[in-house]
């Protein structure tokens, strides 16, 4: 496993990759059970905030690698959940360049290896809540987006960050038809982008990111509906105006720019109050959806005084 990680970040970064690359899934699930057990004792007040917050990971049980890599919404490879696993291997992820706009540096195009150089790779076990009403728990590896943004000198008037997925209809068969207005585009406010929870994932379960999960380089914003977490990013632009975002352009009534997970604001065609937990099988119980997908303590300040029904 560790060898595969070395491939993308270079050998000198291995030191920072201590726990997820060598710990098999069942082991760290056991460790989480241990943490839960500790929390039940009188140490609760001490153990919970430290263990949960230090690395922002949830203690919920992660989905299996099989589930995470075979149930994807990645319309660039087809609209069925199983299409990405079938067709995403056609995407060339090496070499991979990311273009930056809205920065004062002259060099705007970076190879993925240059971006990853010197970044401390860490694991984040995040909840993922899809706007369709299902959820997963995924052990990502990568780095906080702000570690990347802080490298640049942004234009003074930067208020938003826009992201573009690659447009390669030859490699992405779903892009041959105008199911969506390609390339897929997403955006965040600069405050959201700089939030320590906002993450760039380069892998999961300690391995390189599989193509169907957005290789080689994707966004993960755990308190927003999954479609905000854009995959296979080719361009990042810092801008003053709110950027074009694919789903809210496709259907502005149903998908807002913010799209924060919120059980009290229904999708016009279905309820968002509960979610189906992937991996619970045919007879699994629905889970009550939490405001900001359970990350309320961390992100509520970003939306202080904002009418979440209006800015959905």
């Amino acid at each position: 496993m560790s060898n595969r990680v070395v491939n993308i970040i270079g050998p000198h970064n291995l030191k920072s990759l201590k726990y997820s690359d060598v710990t098999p899934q069942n082991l760290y699930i056991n460790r989480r059970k241990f943490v839960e057990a500790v929390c039940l004792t009188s140490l609760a007040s001490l153990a919970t905030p430290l263990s949960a917050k230090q690395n922002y990971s949830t203690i919920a049980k992660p989905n299996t690698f099989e589930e995470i890599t075979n149930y994807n919404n990645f319309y660039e490879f087809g609209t069925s959940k199983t299409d990405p696993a079938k067709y995403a291997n056609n995407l060339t992820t090496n070499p991979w360049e990311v273009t930056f706009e809205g920065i004062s540096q002259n060099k705007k195009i970076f190879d993925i290896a240059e971006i990853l150089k010197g970044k401390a790779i860490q694991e984040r076990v995040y909840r993922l809540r899809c706007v369709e009403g299902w959820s997963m728990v995924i052990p990502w590896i990568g780095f906080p987006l702000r570690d990347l943004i802080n490298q640049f000198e942004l234009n003074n008037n930067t208020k938003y960050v826009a992201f573009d997925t690659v447009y390669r209809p030859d490699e992405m068969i779903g892009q041959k038809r105008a199911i969506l207005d390609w390339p897929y585009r997403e955006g965040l406010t600069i405050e959201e982008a700089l939030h320590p929870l906002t993450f760039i994932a380069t892998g999961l379960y300690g391995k390189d990111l599989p193509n169907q999960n957005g290789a080689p380089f994707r966004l993960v914003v755990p308190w927003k509906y999954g479609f905000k977490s854009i995959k296979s990013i080719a361009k990042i632009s810092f801008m003053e105006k709110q950027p074009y975002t694919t789903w809210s352009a496709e259907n502005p009534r149903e998908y807002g720019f913010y799209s924060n997970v919120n059980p009290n604001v229904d999708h016009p065609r279905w309820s968002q109050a509960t979610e189906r937990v992937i991996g619970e099988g045919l007879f699994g119980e629905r889970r009550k959806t939490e405001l900001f997908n359970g990350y309320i303590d961390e992100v509520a300040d970003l939306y202080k005084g904002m009418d979440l029904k209006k800015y959905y």
Partner: protein
Amino acid sequence: MKFRAIFKHLPVSLLYLILLTPIPLYFYWGVLNQLGPDPLRFLEHKYGELGLVFLLITLSISPLLRYAKINLMKFRRCVGLVAFYYVISHICVYFFLDIGLSMDLLLSDLQKRYYIIAGFFAFITLIPLALTSNNFSLRKLNIRTWNKIHSFVYVAIILSIFHFILMSKTWTGELYFYISVTVIILALKLKRTKIYKKLSTYSNADISK
């Protein structure tokens, strides 16, 4: 022709068995967790989609006879009822497994969600058809009344297609496919309605003036 011979000698009861087998089979696979990461949605969608497919096959049997001279009339009742059983299975998965028997969720869905409303009425429309699809009803009811009841299948197919469109996030290939088949079947039916015939005779009369 072999194919034709097979159809000629296929007993209807065997066809019931063949067409209904996927219902318990998929459920069994679901229980064994072999339907992928989201077995519930798989089962719900599979039953619903097959219900739509069999409904469309039922509706194609009469145009097949009329325009292609292929006679499958013997199987029409069977396929129609099979469609109804798939629809019931689809609703059972929704009610028992998806919303977990919650009357609150059912009622709020029926008030707010257009695709659930459309689907619900499609199901309601199909009930009298299923109930009168036996020989007893055929004998008891006036044939014109019976035909009238069973013409509601066209209302059901329109509602079903709306149910499908309204629940979709985008215009997928399969959505286009089912819409096209439905439109063709409806167009062929429309050609044979009294209103259309009257209108066309009027317009012909206009032209001849």
